[in-house]
């Protein structure tokens, strides 16, 4: 796709020695278009293009490699570098309980992810407890209870509107039952909702999670950096989960968020079933964005 476009830009360039500013400016325009159409943030795209220009100018055009391919390689490597070269696992408290808190915007896939993570840990022979702390959404607690029941994992919740207390209860239950992990499912919320962001901060200060994961829908567009940045500043998180990657969204939001916040992408959601969870591979996402 992008490779073909760049090839046509470079048709006259073969064997010309080095890449110059002029002959790559057309190709960079194509790259910019590809990035924006892949939902990479406007400013992040500009930053990235400037960096590629820096790396590409003066590069020797090896006789055997097409210039278009060379630019693609420079971009691909830079992308993989940016997205995070290695997998950063979630925190594991070997001697006692690990508390994981899951946060994000409405409908991003948090509850489904809590089920997926719980199942993955259970398969690794860990004992897991789920906390149903979404006290707002109709039948949210039922949703998590149904998930927990399907995989034989206890769900701690109650009929109250007190998310903080539910989380505390879940941690206490986990401690009393010698569980290895407790996963806190929270309500979807807007980063500009002061009351709900304060609720998250209160949960955090009450139970001190070891790991906070920010769940993002892969089809998110330019707004991705706004929510990611705000959640990072107000709550702070340790990693990102990118959901609904089983669709055809390019997932450029992941690059934007990673660039702006520096947080590692830890998991990828690839379907609605509890088994549809993958570890993040930067090279796969790089190829997808450039697709």
């Amino acid at each position, binding site marked *: 796709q992008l490779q073909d476009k760049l090839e046509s830009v470079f048709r006259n360039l073969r064997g010309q020695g080095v890449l110059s500013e002029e002959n790559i400016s057309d190709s960079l325009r194509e790259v910019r278009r590809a990035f924006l*159409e892949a939902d990479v943030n406007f400013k992040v795209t500009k930053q990235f293009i400037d960096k590629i220009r820096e790396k590409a100018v003066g590069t020797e055009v090896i006789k055997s490699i097409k210039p278009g391919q060379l630019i693609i390689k420079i971009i691909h490597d830079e992308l993989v570098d940016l997205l995070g070269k290695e997998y950063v696992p979630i925190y594991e408290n070997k001697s006692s309980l690990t508390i994981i808190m899951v946060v994000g915007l409405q409908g991003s896939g948090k509850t489904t992810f809590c089920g997926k993570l719980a199942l993955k840990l259970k398969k690794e022979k860990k004992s897991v407890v789920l906390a149903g702390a979404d006290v707002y959404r109709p039948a949210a607690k*039922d949703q998590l209870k149904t998930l927990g029941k399907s995989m034989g994992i206890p769900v701690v919740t109650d009929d109250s509107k007190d998310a903080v207390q539910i989380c505390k209860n879940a941690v206490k239950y986990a401690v009393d039952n010698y569980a290895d992990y407790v996963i806190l499912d929270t309500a979807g919320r807007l980063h500009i909702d002061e009351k709900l962001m304060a609720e998250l901060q209160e949960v955090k200060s009450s139970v001190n999670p070891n790991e906070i994961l920010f769940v993002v*829908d892969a089809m998110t567009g*330019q707004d991705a950096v*706004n929510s990611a940045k705000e959640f990072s500043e107000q709550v702070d998180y340790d990693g990102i989960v990118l959901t609904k990657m089983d*669709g055809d969204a390019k997932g450029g939001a992941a690059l934007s968020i990673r660039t702006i916040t520096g947080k590692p992408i830890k998991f990828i959601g690839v379907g609605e079933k509890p088994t549809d969870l993958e570890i993040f591979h930067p090279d796969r996402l790089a190829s997808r964005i450039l697709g």
Partner: protein
Amino acid sequence: LKAKSKIDEELLEEIEEILITGDIGVDTTFTIMENIRQRVKKERYENPEELNFLLRDEIDKFIISEESNDFEIKSNAPLHVIFVIGVNGSGKTTSIGKLAAIYKSKGKKVMLAACDTFRAAACEQLEVWAERAGVAITRLADQTDPSAVIFEAMQRARNGNYDVLLIDTAGRLHTKTNLMLELGKMEKVIKRFIPEAPHETLLVIDATTGQNGLSQARHFTKTAKLSGLILTKLDGTAKGGIVIGITQELQIPVKYIGVGEQIEDLRPFSSKEFVEALFD
């Protein structure tokens, strides 16, 4: 932008950035920018107000919305059927709850069909909304074929002289062939019951959606011809600009916008307000 009184390249770049960061997309932005440049060449600008008017006018031209939209049912059908579809988590179930309340307040007898028989607690979620809105609901056991729920709901709605039937469907990614086939089958069942139905097929789009929204609309309309859009979560910071490209390409209006999670948080779409919000 408000302080500028003349159009220079710097201002045009600023406008382009606003459009792109509003998720309007590369092609649509390019076309709008071209139109602005052409118009600026031909006309003269004395002050910022005239310039601002020009910008808003050019963008507004691109958006398809309805002349008067006050939640009035436009069809004369004895039973008005509304089919609500879209990708996972976009806000379908919540929007149906809001619409149900609105139609009820207009004196309509409303029935909901719980056709998401797949996802955990999906029917329970719609049941809460039916109760909140004070309307009837048809639901069968989980994992029942959704087409069977449609059949049951249309039967009950017709026999009970209901005015409006709102059909909630499971979220589905438009690239999943089997799920799109399921949707097509549901539409056929609707048509078999009432040939003119569904009278409205609304695609629900999350305002935070980027360029993938275009792919969603293109795929969904092939399976169940879309009549309009509901743009949700506009109470956030996302502008929802993707609907501009969608409405242009499919020639369908944005009908409603979701501005919150409560039952009263649904409004008719206003292109003027939408364009204004782009520049906030």
